[in-house]
């Protein structure tokens, strides 16, 4: 592996997942029953042989994230030769627009400066995809570019990838421009918020960005410097989800209930690591009926479940029907409940005989620890 520092970027202030985000930062979101979003970028880095990783924390309460990632042992990061660090920054109290990624990096500049690695690989904590960064870095070095940007070509930019940036490239994959996705055109290159460059150039750019404006982000300075630098796009293939709003979160879970899609993201040679909670297997009681559903360990199921994602330690009692739902860990669904197109956050409790039905287009949300 070439010598690179892995940086898991903080989510920008413009990304808002209504509801869920009140309780934790996006990268700590539970995903597909047993994962958290952070597991994807860190597993990608570790599998690529990158073992010095900085995770930038923006949430006011990083307790659960800190406990989840620990010192990186769960990601097979060697704690002696490698290092996984949580990077904190003083949040601006004036306004959220000042809390940019550039500010977070600047707050920790002396540490970035002290790292011995030649390159940085910056990848977000709020996107789900599989990527071998070792290959990507080699491609970057071979190309001779100053900066390489990873993008995903889509024909759904009109309905998906809100709040993402789109990338305009020339025929040589050279950078032309970067704009927030307008949703007008369907065919677009979605920027995956993933950058490769030298650590030297990275430090230079964040200092420049700050000078440009107090609220400029890394994307802004890339755009501003595009004339001076050789910036190129590299295309990503395979599953890609950007959790930039609530609907995107819901959809990403639902899409992966197609096992053909799931099996392309989770392959034997590319483990996606996560924290174990030592839950016991799932108990299906007589009378249970389950179809097209992923169930994490520790659940007790007596009702009917269809086309859903069930987190760890969830209880679904008899007579209940759960359809097109994401039920997060340790929630309890009482008897004869009907849930459709709902995301139930952790430790919530839905009482007997309750009926909560939303449409697929606008799924509902039940708050963490709520009792309804």
């Amino acid at each position, binding site marked *: 592996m070439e010598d690179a520092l892995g940086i898991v970027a903080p989510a920008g202030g413009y990304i808002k997942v209504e509801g869920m985000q009140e309780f934790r930062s996006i990268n700590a979101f539970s995903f*597909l*029953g*047993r994962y958290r979003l952070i597991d994807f970028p860190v597993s990608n880095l570790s599998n690529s042989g990158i073992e010095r990783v900085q995770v930038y924390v923006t949430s006011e309460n990083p307790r659960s994230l800190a406990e989840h990632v620990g010192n990186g*042992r769960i990601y097979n990061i060697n704690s002696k030769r490698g290092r996984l660090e949580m990077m904190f920054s003083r949040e601006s109290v004036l306004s959220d627009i000042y809390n940019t990624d550039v500010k977070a990096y600047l707050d920790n500049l002396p540490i970035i400066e002290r790292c011995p690695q030649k390159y940085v690989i910056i990848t977000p904590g709020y996107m789900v995809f599989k990527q071998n960064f070792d290959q990507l870095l080699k491609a970057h070095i071979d190309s001779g570019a100053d900066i390489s940007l990873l993008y995903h070509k889509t024909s759904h930019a009109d309905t998906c990838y809100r709040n993402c940036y789109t990338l305009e490239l020339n025929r040589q994959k050279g950078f032309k421009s970067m704009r927030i996705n307008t949703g007008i055109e369907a065919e677009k290159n979605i920027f995956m918020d993933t950058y490769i460059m030298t650590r030297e150039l990275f430090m230079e750019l964040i200092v420049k960005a700050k000078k440009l404006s107090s609220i400029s982000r890394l994307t802004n300075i890339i755009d501003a410097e595009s004339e001076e630098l050789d910036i190129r796009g590299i295309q990503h293939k395979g599953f890609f989800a950007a959790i930039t709003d609530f609907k995107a979160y819901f959809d990403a879970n639902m899409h992966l209930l197609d*096992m053909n899609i*799931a099996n392309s993201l*989770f392959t034997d040679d590319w*483990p*996606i*690591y996560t924290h*174990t909670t*030592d*839950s*016991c*297997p*799932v*108990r*299906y*009681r*007589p*009378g*249970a*009926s*389950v*179809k*097209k*559903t*992923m*169930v*994490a*360990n*520790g659940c*007790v199921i007596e009702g009917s479940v269809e086309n859903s*994602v*069930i987190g760890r330690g969830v209880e679904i009692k008899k007579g209940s029907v759960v359809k097109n739902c994401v039920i997060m860990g340790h929630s309890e669904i009482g008897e004869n409940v009907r849930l459709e197109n709902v995301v139930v956050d952790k430790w919530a409790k839905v009482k007997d005989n309750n009926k909560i039905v939303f449409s697929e287009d606008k799924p509902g949300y039940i708050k963490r620890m709520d009792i309804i």
Partner: protein
Amino acid sequence: MAKNNMLAMVLAGGRGSRLLDLTNKVAKPAVAFGGKYKIIDFPLSNCANSGIDIVGVLTQYESVLLNSYAAASRIWGLDSKDSGVFVLPPREKADSGLNVYRGTADAISQNIDFIDSYDPEYLLILSGDHIYKMNYEEMLRYHIENKADATIGVIEVPIKEASRFGIMNTSDNDRIVEFEEKPAKPKNNLASMGIYIFNWKLLRKLLVADIKKKDSNHDFGKDIIPVMLADNKMLYAYRFKGYWKDVGTIDSLWEANMDLLDEASELDLADPRWKIYTEDATELPQYIGENAKVSNAYITQGVNVEGTVENAVLFTNSCVEEKAVVKDTVLMTGAIVEEGAKVTRALVADGVRIGKGAVVGKAGSDSILLVAHDVKGKGE
């Protein structure tokens, strides 16, 4: 060791030959159980939960998998500074060649140097192949309160079955007055669980004396305990209440798995206050497919069900394809039941493939069928 001054030694050398093909490549303590566990997870998790930091695991037979597994102390949280699970196979010494362990007591005797290096006050001896949840710290408290020289874990068995066990005959207060191995006419119903707490200094003396005895079996039950009783030492029986099972045969292993479907069973693996820890599989959550029927089952992570599952326990990465039917059965790790196959009253071993349309086992059979080799599908 700062915490309770007790070191545990787990006897995990058993081959478990009555488990037939299941123990061809692994020792009995490494046999899988309950979807995601191995049998040795039980004593090791019990140790971790009882505040024991240092555990020696005495292995012997075909131990490469067991050795690697038990040495991964992190599984049970026993990887912190001053903690550890240490695998102790027989070894060559300056004054002796490479010898197998000659008996339970000999296994400890050959590792006196290991135990001494931690200087424990108490030594806990456990068996590596029983399924149960037990707080050894409470047993130690009982041992200390009784000012005992040794305390032996016992379980009440029906008196008519007592002649199958090592029986402790006790006076008032459960002080042990006699030990009888498989007595023809049992006087008591307290069966030894093979769990002992000794004061290490005393046991050490007895072991050193026992090594030299030519006629000794070097066994705790047959040699050490009788010597202590003859010497009028204070031995107490510690009564254990709860689920305890020696899964020595295919039938009893199948039964123990099926007990997990019994709501009345005392073995509660879901209790968050006393978890059983095991190696975490890097796998997706279990997936129950579009046409699957799952009822009364115990299924773990990484399993894929497209067919029908009824009254069954499915281990990690096992798979039931479309139109296949699995009933009254245990599918061990990675076992695959292909399209349209039918498995009844069986225990399907690790990685075994039941081919398309094959029919295996039958309802109402006397004993459980062990399927240890691939079964060809129809027309294969």
